[in-house]
Structure formats: C-alpha cells, structure tokens
C-alpha cells in the first residue's frame, strides 16, 4: 500500500522535474544563440572566410565573374548546410532540444578536446574528472569537517571554541576564489613554495608516483581556499542547527528518561535532522560539478568551469548547451533522489501526502 503511493509520488515528481529540464535546456539554447542572433554572426563569418579563402587562391582570379560568384555561393551554401544554418532558427532550436535531451551532444564548433576529438561529449568528459577531483573532494571535506566540528561545538556550547566559531562565521561570506587570490599571493608569489596554478608541473613528471604528487601539490592551494571559505560558517551552521534541534522538547524528555548521551545524539538529534543535512550534502556535491568557474579561472584549473568559460568566450554553442543539459540532468536526478530518500527517512512524508 505504501509502496504504490511511493511509486506514484516518484513518478509525478520525475515527470515534473523532466519538464523543468526541458524548459531549462530550451532556454539555454535560446540564450546561447541569442535568439538566432548568433546565426547572423556565424553566417557573416562564413561568408568572410569563404571569400577570403578564394581570394587567396591564385587560380580563382582567373575565373570569370559569374563563375566566381557561383563558386562562392555554392561553397557558402555548403558551409551553411554543414553547420545547419540553412534552416530557420526556430526549427533548429527544437532539433537541438531533441538532441540535447537525448544526450546526442554533437560536435563542437571551435573547441576540441586535448585528444583532438570534436565530439562535445568527449570534450566534456575529458574535463569532468579534473573538476570532480578538486571540487567534489573539497565539498566532501567541507561537509564532514563542518559536521563533526558542528557536533562538537553544540556539545560544548558556550566554550571559547564555540564563541570563536560564532565570531568567525561571517568570514565565510568571502568566496573561495577570493581566498585563492590571497593564497596565491602568499604561497606562490611571495614565498614561492607552491605553484601559481594549473594541474601539473610543466614538463610533467614521468613516473606515476611523481605525477600524482605533482597533481596533489597543485591541488593544495585551491582546496585550501575552498576549505577556508566554508570552514567557519559550515561549522557554525551545523552547530546552530544541532543546538536548535537539541532544544526540542523530546530531547529533554529523552534526557529525563535517562537515555545515555550517545543515544540522544544519534536517535534524537541526528536522526530528525538527517533530511536537511542530506539535502545540503547532495546539493553541495551537484553544485561542485558546475566547477566553480571563477575558482578554476583564478587557478587555471582545466576543468568543467574553465571549459564553460572558454566555450562562452568562443561562442561554441553546442558545448555550452551540452554542459548545461548534462548539469541539468544531474541536478534533476539528485532532486528526485532526494525526494525519494526524504520519503524513506522521514515518516511524516512516507505514509501520507505529508503534513
């Protein structure tokens, strides 16, 4: 009985989320093409390139005018066809939409992957691991650090350490990339002990061990920047969170009953606060995939964020759309997963329509 409700609920949510993804993808397509304006830019560029190419061909000048015109027109039309500009934008936009949603991401216009592939999927997949390596690690470290410190602080409410974190919480308003600039200033420019940026030494070390160590060395500053930024606020939020939950009446009742402190922490404080905590973790991980574009730029970290920036600068719309759609799917899947987990953990949601 409860299972059927759950399935219905999940199905409804899945459809809603999918519709949102569709709209998001289409909007991105519209924006990335500036509603068709980019077409005009590309068209004029093609005409310019073709004309120039022919002008530079000495043979070309020998042809009579009408032959020249015909050649140019045919080549231009061929180019249009290749890129798909022969159809009006509206129709193409829906084609893009269908392709994007089925993850047929096509070929990039200008960018290539390091291995030389033009396939958008390869370009993205090549950059994804770097981003995950850096930012997902940072998110996980931040999550567990703030969880345990927050728990510790809530137990030692009012202590010096507690007051220190309360006082320091506002420092997290400064974003990670900004701390990154300072870290680069101190450790790379002034002290010269850590690299300015990039993922690997140039030239890269030959043995696997040294390679790995070099990557780790390059990870230190960006990782630290993110950890410093999130440190105080993360611990403070969790600590406040746990404190508020520990002032609940049922916690007091449990204490009165003589429930040992450890059990109170797990069953009476952590369990009820699990849904929001899991949400924070899940959303944090998904957000980390978008690659913190600015941080990657500051540290010249060749991940998804820098790729997004490069794609935008080069107006490489297939890549932009590819990244957005993949990201939308990931986010949508996470939201759906969260809804399911909520339903399983929180009994108030499981059984009925919720409160």
């Amino acid at each position, binding site marked *: 009985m409860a299972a059927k409700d759950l399935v219905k609920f999940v199905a409804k949510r899945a459809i*809603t989320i999918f519709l949102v993804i569709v709209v998001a993808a289409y909007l991105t397509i519209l924006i990335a093409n500036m509603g068709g304006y980019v077409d005009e830019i590309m068209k004029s560029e093609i005409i310019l390139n073709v004309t120039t190419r022919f002008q530079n061909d000495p043979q070309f000048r020998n042809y009579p005018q009408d032959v020249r015109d015909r050649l140019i027109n045919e080549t231009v039309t061929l180019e249009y066809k290749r890129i798909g500009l022969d159809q009006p934008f509206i129709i193409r936009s829906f084609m893009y939409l269908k392709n994007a949603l089925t993850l047929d991401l096509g070929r990039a216009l200008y960018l290539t992957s390091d291995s030389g592939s033009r396939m958008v999927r390869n370009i993205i997949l090549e950059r994804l691991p770097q981003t995950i390596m850096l930012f997902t690690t940072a998110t996980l470290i931040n999550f567990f650090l703030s969880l345990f410190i927050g728990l510790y602080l809530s137990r030692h409410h009012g202590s010096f350490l507690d007051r220190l974190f309360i006082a320091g919480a506002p420092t997290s308003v400064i*974003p990670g990339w900004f701390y990154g600039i300072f870290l680069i200033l101190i450790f790379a420019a002034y002290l010269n002990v850590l690299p300015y940026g990039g993922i690997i030494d140039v030239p890269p070390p030959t043995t696997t061990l040294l390679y790995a160590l070099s990557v780790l060395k390059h990870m230190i500053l960006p990782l630290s920047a993110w950890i410093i930024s999130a440190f105080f606020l993360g611990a403070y939020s969790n600590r406040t969170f746990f404190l508020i939950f520990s002032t609940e009446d049922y916690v007091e009742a449990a204490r009165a009953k003589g429930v040992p402190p450890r059990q109170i922490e797990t069953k009476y404080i952590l369990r009820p606060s699990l849904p929001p905590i899991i949400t924070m973790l899940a959303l944090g991980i998904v957000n980390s995939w978008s690659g913190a574009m600015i941080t990657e730029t500051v540290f010249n970290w060749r991940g998804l964020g820098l790729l997004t920036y490069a794609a935008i600068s080069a107006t490489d719309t297939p890549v932009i759309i590819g990244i957005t759609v993949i990201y939308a799917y990931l986010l949508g899947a996470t939201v759906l997963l969260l809804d399911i987990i909520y339903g399983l953990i929180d009994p108030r949601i499981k059984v009925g329509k919720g409160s």
Partner: protein
Amino acid sequence: MSSEGYEFTIKGTLKELITYKSGIFGTAFLTLLLTISIYTVVTLPYDQAVRLWRGEGGVWLENPRTAQPYWVKYFGQNLPETIKRDSTQSGQGGTVKIITSIPQSGMKLARISFTFDFSYDGFPSELNIFFSAKYNESAPLLNIYWVKPGGTEIKLLTYIPRSQNDKLYLSINTQVSSALMSYMSGILGKAPEVPLPTEYSLFAVEDATMNSTLTAKPLKGTYRLYIEGTLFGEDSDIDAKLIVYGKVYGLAGTDNQRRDLTVALLWGTPIALAFGLTASVMITFIELLLATISGYYGGKVDSVIQRITELYMILPFLPILIMISTFYKLDLPVLIVVVIVLSIFGGGIKSTRALVMQIKEYPYIEAARAYGASSKRIVFLYIIPKILPPVIPALIGSVPSYVFLEAALAILGLGIPNLPSWGKVINESFNAGALYKGYYYWVLEPAFMLILTALAFSFLGFALDKIVNPKLREV
C-alpha cells in the same frame, strides 16, 4: 522566556545591535563606507571619474608608474618621491631660466638650470623632460648636462625637440645611455658587464658597487640638470619641466598606467555599495512578494511560481550572466537589472513561502477576512510585516555576494569597461603580472576594500540575525 525589553522596532533593534561587538563593527564600517561614497560622488562626479580613469588629456603623465603608496617608507627603505622642477617657475626652488638675445642674429641663448636635493635610499624610476618650445621654423638646439654632487659633470645629449610640445624620455634615450656608458667605463676602467639603467647611472655612488643594479647605491646630495640651448626666431621661447619620477606616490600608489589608485579605491566604494545594495534589496523584496503571492493565493499561481523556482535552480546563473555580458555591452544599471532578473526566483522563495503558509492560518488573519478585508490588504498590512523581520538579516548578509559578483565579473575581464571598480583594478593588476613582479599593493588594496566591505555587511547581518530570529536567541 522572551528576552525582556526587546521590541520589534527599529529603535529596539538598534539598541540590541549595539550590545554585539559584531554589530558595532558592522554599523561603524558601513557608515564609513557610506560617507566615503557620498563624499566621492559629490567631489568627483561619475562622468568625470570615468574620463579621468580613461586617462583623457594625459592627466597622469607626471605620476610614476607602479609606484607604491608613500607610507611604505615607514616599513622599509626611504624610497624616492617624485621631484618636479618647472622652468616657468624660475627663481623658486633651485630653478633658473635665463634667455639672452644675441643681437642682430635672430637667435637667442637659453639657459635653464634645475637643482634639487636627493637624499633617498632608492633610485628614481624614470626621468623625463617635457618641453614646451615656441618657434616658427627651426626648433631650438639643446645641449643637456648632468651634474652630480661633488661636481662631476656629464654631457647627456644634444637634442632638438620634434614639436612644440615634446617629451624627452631620458630613461630610454639611447644617446643618453651611451654617453653614460662611456662615462662609467671611464670610472670603472672597463665597461660594466651588464649595462646599468639610466636612472642608476645618473644617481649611483661611483665605486665598484656601480657594477650591477643589485649593489648600486644612490649618491645623496645636490644634483643639477642644465640645458643650454640656441633658439631661432624673434619670438622663440623654450620652457622645460624636469620630472624625476619616484617609486612612491600618494595614499595608494599608482598602477602601470600611472593612475592614482586612490581614485579607483574611492570610486569603487559607491559602485560596490550601489551594486550590492540595489541587487540585494530588489531581489529580496521581489522574492518576498513572489513568495507571499505563492503562499497566500496557492493553487495554480503557487504551482507556476514553484515550477519557475525549480527552473531557476537548474539554470546555471553564472554562465548565463557571462553569456549575456559577452554578447551585449552592459553598463552598471543594466548589469544590475540583469542580475536581478536572473535571481528573483531563487531559493529564498521556498522558505519564505513556508512561513507565509504558516501565518496564513493564524486566527487574526481569519478574523481580518471575516470583517471583509481584501486579500491585498491582508497581504500588505498583516502578512508582509510579519515576514519582513526574518528576511532583513539575510538581505544584509547577501550584499557581499553581489559585491563579489561584480568583482568576479571584472576579474574575468567581463566587467563594465572604464568603470573604476575594485574588481577592475584587480583584473588590471593580474593582466599586468602584478603577482610576478611584486606589485603586491596593487592587488592588496582593492582586495582589502572588498574584504572590509564584505565583512562589515556580513557581521551586521549575523548580528541582526541573532536579534531577529527567536530560535537563535536561546542558543
């Protein structure tokens, strides 16, 4: 159990605020920022500032390049400040200008002499002479000499100005450097291994330390530069301005385009405040309105607003903002509007909406409806005042994010062109390689302003949150 004495009014809140150290710091610094903003906007209007920052009219020419702030001398070497001597002020400060006509030849003899003391621990960064010559057909013929303390005289070069307003860059002039090279070879007995920059040769102590820039020390004493020239024409005249560029300048130093950084630091303040406050206030209020409508009216309106909110969650804010900035030319007000539009259906709506739905059920709302109050009246007179207080701390606390957003755009190179904002300064410093070349002040000063602004709002927001949020007070 409620905190005795706290009233939910502005005065009450301010009274509580003072009891928190963070509140005091936040308010104090915010007031300081506002004062700076008002002062800056009044004394240096926007258009003027933009033109100034663009360097129109060569206003910055007499400033040294990438000079540190003058107060670094308290922490280290006594680095030179800029020394200027102008022949139009003959008779003052060691400047003498004499023009004698040679009768019946149509020529005149000019003699301009600049004297100055140099007692700094470091070498100047540059030397330039700005000529303003008056002549009809032939430009004057000038011989320029340098006299070091102790009397040694060196002829630097013979120079003919190429126009009525000409600039002689002594530091990079090849004639000058070869003249100095031979002079130095004479002293040292051989040519130095690595050619010394002109400023060093002109000012260095003349011993073995002259061999390299690392060991050279400036000779302290009275220096003199004099120009002997022949002018052609009855109405001819010549004026010269000698500028010995220092390595420090002003309160904040200069950048690589010789611009006084205090202008950018000052003007960055109203820009940051305008951007941050406008975006934050507008977004918060629109979100508030949307959440209230969504929560109060429910039904289809609620569903639509919720779906749009989810849409916003999936669409990546920063890439789209960058896309728009790349494709279109934006100025400050338009950028603010774009940021607002891209943010209004943000996550804050969900929590406020939950609160609205809770308040909707309160008896006094029901009572209001019973006596015939319209929905609009209920929303504006009852619900919004109730959900406003919890929202204010978040509003204040989110201002820094927008300030950093503008800075981020500038650092990525997408900022508003010609806008002297803090982010822009950092961006330019990076492009000029400030980190590699050690121009740390150039990065640190705008960064410092950003940090202080962010912390001020952040501390204030946290303090307000503790006051306004009842659950946090017990904790």
